[in-house]
């Protein structure tokens, strides 16, 4: 019962903050709402028994990405101009609604193979095992490392003056 209440609370927060991200005129506030949205997603992860992921979500998304975004907003003085809509409002709303409709239809009508087993808990040790052992996901970890290296190099190239 407590889990359900938590879910509905978190889900509502997530949706409302997400709407705020895309609708608020004030970009700075939108960025703060993004942090709220990330936090509630982390909460959702907890209700799904993914405690480690929740921590990662908070650390990376809230601690790094959101801060980076706020930094960028300040650098580009976007707050003064605000977040304005473009001319495509109606077609985009129609397309997104239709997309949501199709998605919900697909979700509801599909016989998902739900298993009755309890979730693995705690996940931290398990995840470490599967990420960093040879029989696990060591390859994507390595690729991700290179990806981050490329990102750093590229960001430096783009940010520094000629």
């Amino acid at each position, binding site marked *: 019962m407590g889990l359900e209440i938590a879910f509905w609370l978190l889900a509502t927060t997530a949706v409302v903050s997400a709407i705020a991200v895309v609708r608020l005129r004030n970009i700075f506030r939108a960025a703060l709402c993004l942090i709220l949205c990330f936090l509630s997603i982390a909460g959702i992860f907890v209700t799904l028994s993914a405690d480690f992921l929740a921590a990662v979500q908070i650390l990376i998304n809230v601690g790094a990405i959101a801060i980076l975004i706020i930094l960028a907003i300040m650098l580009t003085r976007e707050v003064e101009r605000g977040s304005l809509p473009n001319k*495509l409002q109606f077609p985009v709303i129609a397309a997104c609604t239709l997309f949501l409709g199709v998605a919900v239809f697909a979700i509801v009508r599909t016989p998902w193979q739900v298993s009755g087993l309890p979730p693995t808990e705690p996940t931290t040790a398990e995840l470490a095992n599967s990420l960093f052992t040879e029989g696990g996901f060591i390859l994507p970890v390595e690729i991700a490392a290179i990806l981050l290296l490329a990102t750093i190099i590229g960001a430096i190239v783009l940010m520094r003056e000629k």
Partner: protein
Amino acid sequence: MTLGLEHFLILSSVLFAIGLYGALSRRSAVVILMSIEVMLGAVSIAMVAFSRYVVPALLTGQVFTIFIIVVAAAEATVGLAIIIAIYRRRETIDVTKIDLMKW
């Protein structure tokens, strides 16, 4: 009604649609980037939910989600770097004004 897979999936699809709306309808490149982050967060929810309900004994979905978060961070970094580079040249990041190349 007990909490089930569908709840999480529908939450995920709603967030995805909201993010999509933002990405396609806001003029500010930063807001578009934020909307994309929302979309990726939505996918993460679906991924973890599937992991929890379909293969609870394994952690595949969670592992996948870690990579999604890493990639999201990388994309945000590169995206912001590009936005700042473009701001330096044009004094604007309104994507409807960034249309030198067309047709």
